[in-house]
């Protein structure tokens, strides 16, 4: 029963997306184009996040440690 509710809820969310972005009004080939573009953009954002976010977090963490106290004269970490 929960799966059915979940599927209904997801379908309803998809309908809201369609209405807000006007893809409800588009012809099928336009929808394909629009969704492809959106999915491609989303994929690129996620991929970029996957590659760069750990590096950014660790750099920010090191910067915080540097601010709190000069404790890393000999702890220069090399990131591959």
């Amino acid at each position, binding site marked *: 029963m929960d799966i059915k509710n979940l599927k209904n809820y997801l379908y*309803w969310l998809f309908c809201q997306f369609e*209405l*807000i*972005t*006007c*893809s409800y*009004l588009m*012809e099928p080939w336009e929808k394909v184009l629009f969704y492809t573009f959106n999915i491609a953009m989303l994929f690129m954002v996620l991929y970029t996040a996957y590659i760069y976010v750990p590096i950014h977090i660790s750099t920010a963490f090191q910067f915080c440690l540097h601010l709190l106290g000069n404790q890393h004269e000999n702890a220069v970490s090399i990131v591959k």
Partner: protein
Amino acid sequence: MANPNAVCNGHLHHHHHQKQNNLLKSGIYKKNGITKGMKKNGVSNGTLYKKTFIEHFEQAPMYVAVLTFLGFGVGTVFGYLRDFMRAWGLEKRHIAAEREQQKDFVPLYQDFENFYTRNLYMRIRDNWNRPICSVPGPQFDLMERVTDDYNWTFRFTGRIIKNVINMGSYNYLGFAETDVNALKTVTIELQKYGTGICSTRQEMGTLDKHVELEKLVAKFLGVEDAMVFGMGFATNSMNIPALVGKGCLILSDELNHTSLVLGARLSGATIRIFKHNNMQSLEKLLRDAIIYGQPRSHRAWRKIIILVEGIYSMEGSIVRLPEIVSLKKKYKAYLYLDEAHSIGAVGASGRGVVEYFGMNPDDVDVLMGTFTKSFGAAGGYIAGKKDLVDFLRTHSHSAVYATSMCPAVAEQIIRAMKCLMGQDGTTQGLQRVRQLGKNTRYFRRRLHEMGFIIYGNDDSPVVPLLLYMPGKIGAFARRMLEKNIGVVVVGFPATPITESRARFCVSAAHTREMLDTVLNALDELGDFLQLKYSRYSKASHPELYEETRLELED
């Protein structure tokens, strides 16, 4: 005699109880020739308004505006894409285009309006111009039509959708009916006069029916004389040029109807626009007009006329008539009141906004209205002092050139007006007006409780429900039709681009069950389409509306 209610609001009302049965409906009574009004707490603008004037124009949350622009942005991008494909021959052109020989001429179809029509309006075009095949009463029959090529062409399947609840027709008092008894006199007149007039008013087109109708309209409104015309739109656009000309000033409301705008432009007078129903803006314009006069010569204006409507059909707001009348008296301007939607629909006995505010019809210089909305007929009238109407009989473009009203239609108006005035011996007219008031208040109250954003005055039968996003316009109209309810949705350019809406017209002919059906459908659809944007409703603040719970001991 000691009366605990003798003093209230600092005014002695000791004679209130004895004079109770002499009080008029609006609470004004005379003593020694001096008119006194009942003073209530919380009435705005001092004593000008005798009942509370509540209007709602709630703004939607910010994310709604952002998403609306996002939707239009996506639509515009795809519009450019489709135009590109059409220009490069990748797609067949369905819409009008210039001929091959005219390719180097000034382009005809590149402005924003045509772009919008081709790319955005066409996608949801199936919600407008739907042909109906019965009388537009509280329910009507619709011809089913489908499209094979995304709304460029339609074809009729031959099936008729029956008994669709009508929430779009301007049938405020329910006079659009086919009941044989009601239309008896109309049938008689039709057989006596036929249908065509074949002449203008000034030649041979004035019938005794027109004279009878004009006398009745003048009596109904409480003015000296009236003149009727065959078409409501033409009443405005053809008569304003006869009343004002060059050297005159027209102060017109921001949201006036196209007929008023067209009439004002045709007249050649200077037009200045004040903000919708905003008396400070109007007063500023009046003061500037009187202080500075005409633009270059600084001479006094020949005439200053204020154009307003009784009920604005896209907003549902009612004009602030008492304030406008006091302004016009102070600055000596003329007032032209277009009661197209308000005649028959507001007021204790259906006589329009003048009666709604308890004012004297002599205060308004030109009373204009149409018979299309509340009387189930066609045509318009202009009423006022006898000199004004006599002037219009000779100088109006409509009187000289336009065909006069058909006699059967005139008889329909006569019978509807007699019914309203009670002259046919029944109280049916008054019952209709009361039913309309009840329906209006019920409908608006329920919609507010559900959490929709509704514009307009609490007493106006025109109810705009805001939809905002372009995708929802089409979805709303189509789904309501699937539930057998016909609604009118409006978008750009009739409304501002972000405020598209669905406009409901409540009618006296709607029964409580019909309204409940519509309200339940709206509730469901509002949840599905997420249309309940209001932040002040019962749904969003249930703790404010909780009734006190009494614990009863058994």
